[in-house]
């Protein structure tokens, strides 16, 4: 009886608190609470600027202690406990109810500037969607291509993960991690990694310098100090043969792999995708509330990165001066994407279901297995060894699932999704082809298949998110008028269309107005207002997509765009 009473009283207190909160917060909520609060705070705090394009999170700090979430502990947390606790999260259900009554209880991403963009930071640099990456640079990725010089000395065994490999020191004394492609599938993981990391880099994420490599047994030597296990026994040629036996071999007998250059700085460990890094005083925002981590969902859905998790990232401490430096966050190991898995083609479920998927488990159970899951409908088996299992026909951008639920993905809002879709949609066919070329596929079918399917998936993503949020963006003033881009029209998903603008002036006693536009231009002289500020709600005529909200502030005789919000 006691727990039930406790539960009842807790529910009562919470309901009362919720009603109180909803009663006292409507203004803040309607104006998007946290942003209004941030704006207020920014007027007080000179270190905060909503309009900045650079989030200065690389201020010199002392090196934080090495820390990362435990690999298996976080698997249990994200895979089992978190979904269960989420299923029984009563406040979440209350917030859901409140949302139905019109309150905005969903929390938007925190590190978003006034123009609804994620400013540059130690996590992310705005690239392709703001300034197209030239195709030639696209192919290069983060650096000009250079492969590890042979011979390679094996310094360590690869300790983590399911793929076989080792750490090497090349002839130029550079350290690399070499990962073998799974036996029987040359270029499967290495190809997927090269394509995906090239796209992710152009999208804006920090990635390591990776190279698709081929080598022979004779190119390898073993460091005499290399130890096999914990008991001090030497790593022998036979041990190396055991490792190599797990790898893929080309027709000429050389091994297929990719090499990842060690990142500069000191490795602190993987960050949590949920919370801040302990000891990093620059790390202000809970990671689950970061725009670039929430919006990453759309990008991983595009490339089919089914293993997205904490340990796919690595934080490096980069020293700048006097033992001070900053933490930079790298997205590593995107090889479990496209059609690749660690031991061969990816599992057919991967990308469509979590490892432990409560929803699908329940549906299968109650329907006696008669429900037909999308991954069964999808024809994923390409028959191309270097591609594995990949498709675009059944793919639904909103239904993609990584192996484990991801805290930031779970909190993603339409605004975050739209931001991610905008990045995906910014890739041209030529850029996609260039990214695929980075893998140097030997099989011409692989290139053709991946380019075609990445384009189809890109367009599906754009179509989905641009139908949820009016893709009206990149607002600027010209000749006294407001101009903007309709991204759906510009990427060819829609033909020219008209727009509806609702104008809400502040000050000057001018009444509200509603205008129809036949092109993405709003002549402001027609508004004829003395107002000091204009709040515009722009939607696509006859379209249910959530509108874009733009705020214009008078500056001298003209106007400047001071805020953009989608949805």
């Amino acid at each position: 009886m006691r727990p039930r009473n406790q539960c009842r009283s807790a529910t009562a207190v919470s309901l009362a608190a919720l009603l109180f909160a909803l009663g006292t917060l409507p203004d803040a909520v309607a104006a998007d609470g946290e942003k209004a609060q941030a704006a207020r705070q920014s007027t007080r705090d000179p270190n905060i600027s909503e309009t900045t394009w650079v989030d200065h999170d690389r201020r010199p700090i002392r090196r934080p202690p090495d820390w990362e979430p435990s690999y298996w502990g976080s698997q249990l947390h994200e895979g089992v406990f978190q979904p269960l606790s989420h299923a029984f999260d009563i406040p979440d259900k209350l917030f859901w109810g409140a949302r139905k009554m019109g309150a905005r209880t969903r929390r938007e991403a925190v590190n978003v500037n006034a123009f609804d963009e994620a400013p540059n930071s130690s996590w992310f640099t705005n690239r392709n969607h703001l300034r197209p990456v030239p195709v030639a640079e696209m192919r290069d990725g983060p650096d000009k291509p250079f492969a590890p010089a042979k011979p390679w000395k094996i310094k360590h065994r690869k300790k983590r993960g399911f793929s076989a490999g080792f750490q090497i020191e090349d002839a130029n004394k550079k350290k690399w991690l070499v990962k073998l492609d799974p036996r029987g599938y040359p270029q499967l993981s290495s190809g997927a990694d090269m394509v995906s990391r090239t796209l992710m880099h152009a999208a804006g994420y920090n990635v390591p310098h990776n190279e698709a490599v081929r080598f022979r047994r004779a190119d390898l030597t073993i460091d005499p100090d290399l130890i096999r296990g914990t008991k001090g026994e030497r790593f022998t040629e036979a041990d190396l043969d055991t490792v190599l036996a797990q790898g893929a071999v080309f027709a000429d007998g050389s091994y297929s792999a990719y090499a990842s250059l060690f990142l500069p700085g000191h490795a602190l460990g993987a960050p949590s995708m949920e919370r801040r890094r302990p000891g990093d005083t620059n790390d202000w925002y809970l990671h689950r509330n970061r725009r670039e981590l929430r919006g990453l969902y759309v990008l991983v859905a595009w490339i089919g990165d089914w293993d997205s998790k904490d340990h796919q990232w690595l934080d490096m401490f980069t020293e700048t001066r006097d033992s001070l430096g900053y933490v930079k966050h790298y997205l590593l190991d995107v090889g479990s994407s496209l059609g690749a898995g660690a031991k061969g083609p990816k599992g057919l479920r991967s990308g469509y279901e979590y490892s432990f998927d409560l929803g699908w488990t329940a549906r299968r159970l109650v329907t006696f297995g008669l429900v037909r899951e999308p991954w069964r409908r999808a024809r994923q088996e390409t028959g191309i060894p270097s591609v594995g299992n990949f498709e675009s026909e059944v793919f639904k951008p909103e239904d993609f699932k990584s192996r484990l639920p991801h805290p930031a993905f779970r909190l993603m809002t339409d605004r975050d999704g739209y931001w991610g879709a905008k990045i995906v949609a910014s890739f041209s066919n030529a850029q996609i082809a260039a990214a695929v070329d980075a893998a140097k596929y030997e099989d011409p079918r692989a290139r053709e298949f991946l380019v075609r399917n990445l384009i189809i998936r890109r367009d599906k993503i754009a179509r989905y998110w641009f139908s949820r949020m009016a893709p009206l963006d990149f607002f600027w003033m010209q000749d006294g008028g407001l101009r903007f881009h309709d991204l759906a029209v510009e990427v060819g998903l829609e033909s020219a269309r008209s727009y509806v603008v609702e104008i809400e002036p502040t000050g000057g006693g001018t009444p509200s107005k509603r205008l129809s536009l036949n092109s993405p231009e709003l002549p402001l002289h027609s508004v004829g207002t003395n107002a000091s500020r204009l709040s515009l709600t722009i939607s696509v005529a006859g379209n249910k997509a959530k509108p874009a909200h733009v705020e214009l502030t008078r500056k001298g005789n003209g106007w400047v765009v001071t805020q953009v919000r989608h949805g």
Partner: protein
Amino acid sequence: MSQTTSKTGPRAPIRALLALLVGQVVLLFGASGAEAQPRFGDSTWVAPGAVFEADSTADGPRVAPRDHERGWETVVRTPFRVVFFPLRLVATGFEAGVGHFGPRFLDPKPKHPPKRGLSVGPSVAMGTGTDIRLGPAFTYIGLPTANTKLRATGTWSLQDHRHIKFRESLLTPRPVSVLVAADYDFKPTRRFYGIGNDALKTNLGYYLLESTIAEAALAFGRSPLRQIRLVGGYSSMSPRRGYNRTPLVEEIFPPTSMPFYHRGSDNILYGVTADLASLDDPLDPSTGAHGHIELRRAVGVRSSDPDYSQWLLEGRTYVPVFAKHRVLVLRGVYTGLKPRGGATTDIPFYRLPQSEGSAHFAGYNSGRFRDRQLMLARAEYRWPIVRRLNALALFEMGEVAPNSSSFRLRSTHNSYGGGLRLGLSDESAFRLEMAQSVEGFHLVLELGSTF
């Protein structure tokens, strides 16, 4: 800084200069790179230069204040956090434990050929109810030859159930191999409900059975699923007064209703056993058939010991139901024994086929029915719910009889229910069955089921 930007064109530099004068950093970028294809229009909107050029290590503003949970959300969540704190603590403990021990046990290890020599580990075996046995397991690879594996386990439960198991396989997986198996079992809580299909549930009594079975087989065929075995061995069984559970059989049944009551028997066994299977996936079959035959002749060591023939015929068929992953499994078991002359035609009650182990009746207690012959028919519908974990719905009919002509369809003991099945290897599976019969609801957990 605002997002006011300008169009490339003749007046663009003037506009940029004006923008700078009002404190707005605007730099102009065309479609950078000859090969670049701007997807978003003709680059009339140009990103502010700060996006590409600012030095983020320099001092400058942050985009938002430090992030923390909203006050009103904390108010709503706090009572629930307090109430569920113990659960959270448990979950955190589990996570910490898995985080600590996970790398040792769950991390992928490099595959090396099995190491020669002795290794010791734990062994867990589950019986009925609280009969959970624990003990050590010894494995010796390479004794006496490289291709051999010896495994011995000794387990004990709180009911004083003692079990010692010994297995040695020689020359596997060659076309001809030798298997040696020996089991010693001492269980003071064996169940006896009487003999016959109409035995009453209320007549449950307990007795002790001490048994030793040793058997060697010469196996032809590499795979255990396609193999013929010539077997020979020895069996000794001795019933005694049970303990740790009441009532005892002596308190319920007169000695005349229990052939060989308190009298042991020893037999020499020989015969042939075989498996013939054609399955698409032995771990989790969806199409195919599997036949299993055991034919043995038991010869009494002493003249007072019974001579009999013993058989077990089992057939399974797997039929996909409109899709490979939905499977209808039909299983039939027919087992029995027949006296073969000798001094006595009585068969010891403890050697009769009974509804336990692989012939267990789903909705009934283990060992509920016994007689000279036993038949079991089951239809099971399986479908996967999580990867290789299958849910199942079952219907089963079982019956025992003194001879084959005594089986009657109307006398069958029927069960229906459901459960879970997880294939562990080609020859064993984990099963959890929940079945209903006229005698109520029964739950059975089986680790190492052959079905």
